[in-house]
């Protein structure tokens, strides 16, 4: 497939309570569609879209699952290999925001410990129904030493910030990956454009060691 050319493939998962708009975020980003009457997701959905960052093609493989699926038949398959997670809540339903901590725990338990997490307050178009203040969520996302999440508010309905949210998380993942490649210096650096696999493979040990030092 000609349109299947890409430099990086990142798997990103959408999580959050049932009804917060995960599926619509997915359809807005991958197909620019929004459906007010969308059905509940059963099991897993999956879509891809490629974006450009630094003249590199990044293919995002975005997975969407039923909000209730945290009661898991597919947890391990779902999180396996995910390098990013959009943790979505509904700004008009406080309960979905309260459950964010549960979802964070779910991520800690099941996903890679270094997964990039972005907290997403969806349905920002529902201004008159807002139940979660932006500032509160922003602070929560940046609790020093505890949460280090990026944060954004989106509306799948009016499309605001959806593109940006995905752009940001994919770019962040890309920066981390390529940063490591650059940090690794000499040969790896030379290899980046052609043989990402090699350079990343090679620099893993160093990367892990560095990570240890920093933390």
């Amino acid at each position, binding site marked *: 497939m000609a349109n*299947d050319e890409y430099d990086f493939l990142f798997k990103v998962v959408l999580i959050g309570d049932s009804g917060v708009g995960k599926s619509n975020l997915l359809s807005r980003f991958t197909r620019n569609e929004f459906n007010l009457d969308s059905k509940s997701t*059963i099991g897993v959905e999956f879509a891809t879209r490629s974006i450009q960052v630094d003249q590199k093609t990044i293919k995002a493989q975005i997975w969407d699952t039923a909000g209730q699926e945290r009661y898991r038949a597919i947890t391990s398959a779902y999180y396996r290999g995910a390098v990013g997670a959009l943790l979505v809540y509904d700004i008009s339903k406080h309960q979905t925001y309260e459950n964010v901590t549960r979802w964070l725990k779910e991520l800690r338990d099941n996903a*890679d410990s270094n997964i990039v997490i972005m907290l997403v307050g969806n349905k920002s178009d529902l201004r008159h129904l807002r139940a979660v203040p932006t500032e509160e969520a922003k602070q929560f996302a940046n609790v020093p030493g505890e949460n280090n999440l990026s944060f954004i508010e989106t509306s799948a309905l009016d499309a605001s910030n959806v593109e940006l949210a995905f752009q940001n998380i994919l770019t962040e993942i890309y920066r981390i990956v390529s940063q490591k490649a650059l940090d690794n210096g000499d040969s790896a650096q030379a290899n980046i454009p052609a043989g990402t*696999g090699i350079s990343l493979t090679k620099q893993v040990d160093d990367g892990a060691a560095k*990570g240890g030092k920093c933390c």
Partner: protein
Amino acid sequence: MRSLEESRKRWQVTTRHATSLDELKKSVRPNGHDSPCVSGLRSVCWKTFLLFQSTEVTGWSRVLVDSRSAYTSLREHLLRYIDNPDEVGSASDPLNDDKSSPWNTMRQDEEIRAEIFQDVERCMPEEDYFRKPETQKTLLDILFVFCKINQDVGYRQGMHEVLAPILWVIEQDAIKTQAEEMSPGPEEDTVMKEMLDRSYIEHDAFTLLSLVMRSAKSFYELAEPDKRPDTSFTGSGAPQQGASPIVERSKRIHEVYLARLDPELAKHLTDIEVLPQIFLIRWIRLLFGREFPFDDLLALWDTLLAEDPDLDLVDMVCVAMLLRVRWQLIEANYSMALMLLLKYPFPEPPYGPQSFVDDAIYLRDNFSAAGGARIISKYGARPLNLQSSDLRPSTPLGQGSSPKQKLSRTRSPLPSPASFLKQQGGVEALFQGAAKGVLDRGERLGINQAVRDAVGEVRKNMQGLQASRTNSTRRSEGMRWSLDDGRSVPSSSKATVAAMNARNLQLARMLDQTMSDMRAVSKEGDKEQCVEAMDLAVAKVEFVKVYLEDSTMPLPPDSPPLDPASPSAGLRSPSPQDPLQIAAPRAPDTSSTTPKQLEASPALPESSSPPQSTLAGPEIQIAPIPATTGLRQDIPISIPTIATAQGTLARPKAPVPTRSTIAQSSFSWMLESDSPSNSPAKSSPPKPSSPFLKSGRRPTSGPNREKAAFLFGEEGGDSSTTSSRLPSLSDADEGYNMGSIGGGKVK
């Protein structure tokens, strides 16, 4: 809803077909205007298949009345406060924290209802009927009642879309008349009017949902009973203890059914690492509700419910769907395959989705690679070449189906494969649990390394034995299949089956004996004796486990020579010729403990037998006194001898019927899956005989590789571009490690 006139016509069409249950079932199969589900009353057909299970119209009425009144009382009870919130007020203090307070119940119920409603609101958005508030209320109430009386599963997303078609069908057939028109009228209308009474739409929908969910409930069950919504986050962080039934089922569809019917496709899906549950969860949970347009779905359900109200056929429908897109799948990489399966294409005309059930029936009755190939060629652009070498191993098995087997095929009411699997896992877990429990207790009693050493010794010896044994008359492949699906038992394997059953009986007897010994021991005060006997019990359980793990090992004969005169003769020196001589635990000690043992309990046979007999009495039916004396004498003797000797003593009563049945069915299945295949190329080590069995993954396709694939874009090595990016996949395992990412993240 229809007019009385129209309903009458349809009623006649339906009853004309309903000369017998079989006739009615047959008549819904061709999906055309002739089907009574299309030109007649679909709801009546469904009720007949699920509820009445008979075409005796006269009997219908009573069943209907019963089921409706059952729902009425359930509803009254469970929705009392929801429907009449005022009643709660007087009952108690709303601020009372008491768990049983009606206020508390009501709050919880409201939460459940809110959760359900979130899905009801989004149910079938394209159908106006489901947008109506009354409809949504009905859906909500039915699901709520179902959830309350099925608290083990509760409400799970997807159930609403099992209910929706049912409600729709019943609503469609209801008679649109006023109450006064309903009562009088011709005699023959009475049953019809009762059946299609619109005031019972909700009741009947609930009944049919419950009947469908009898089997479909397992599709929604969770892995762990304590993984309930309330505890899922607060529980221990350990992810994924055991797979849920739906994952097991998905695995079975892929690794057993598809592997049998189309080994090449099954292997390809394994190779590209498409996990079956990813797409099967939705297919199965919704009974294909999202895969096909609504009308086609109803037609599919017509046949499915007619053919198999227990829904075991669902698995074969899934296989049939996979076979239909076989050629696309076989060329697809990971994402293409997932895209295809998550957006399943509408089947090529003239075959509608109902044809998948026809295929499924065919595949069930022709459960072989040949049967699979027939289905593939039926729809495929090209025929499947069955002569290709990779298909050969499994083809011969499918061909030897005698008329007799066909007979058993049609009538055998198979246990649901899901429960079959569960049972199997359960048995294995039982043993491991038992052995572990004994070890734990032993630890507390001060036995530690010694026991494990002894156990290890037993195992080593068994392996030695097994390695030296030639793989003679076994037909493991045939056995496994025959026992798995219970349909085709190659006649040449019958002797093997019989032998296996005998073997299982024997093993069951040993376990039985050991268990009664252990029960007896646990009541004794003397620590020394406890320790001693515990050793023995551990070793015995271990012994049985070893035999279970490898079915190729010969069991000792049923009545071995009991040789109490030379207790330690065979310890540590088992010979391949004599499998009975297995090292007993703590072998070096035996000589010293034997006299002690005898000293310590001179009068034991008399004194200890009464309490022991009460202990072992009701559950384990063995003659108490022989058993106890046996225990005493046996301690220093090699284990198999004891076990079988006791088995012999206790034989008339020993095997508790239920236990031995489990042993016979599940054991043999389990044993076979571990036994070496009969392919001449392979030697005997006890490995899974098929790459799909157990977790026999190729080293290059481990989960790490999959991780790497996700991150770096390799997708099953499909395109040269991606593979050139990733010259060494196996090395890329590490490449995924997000340690690198994390390192960068911290500035």
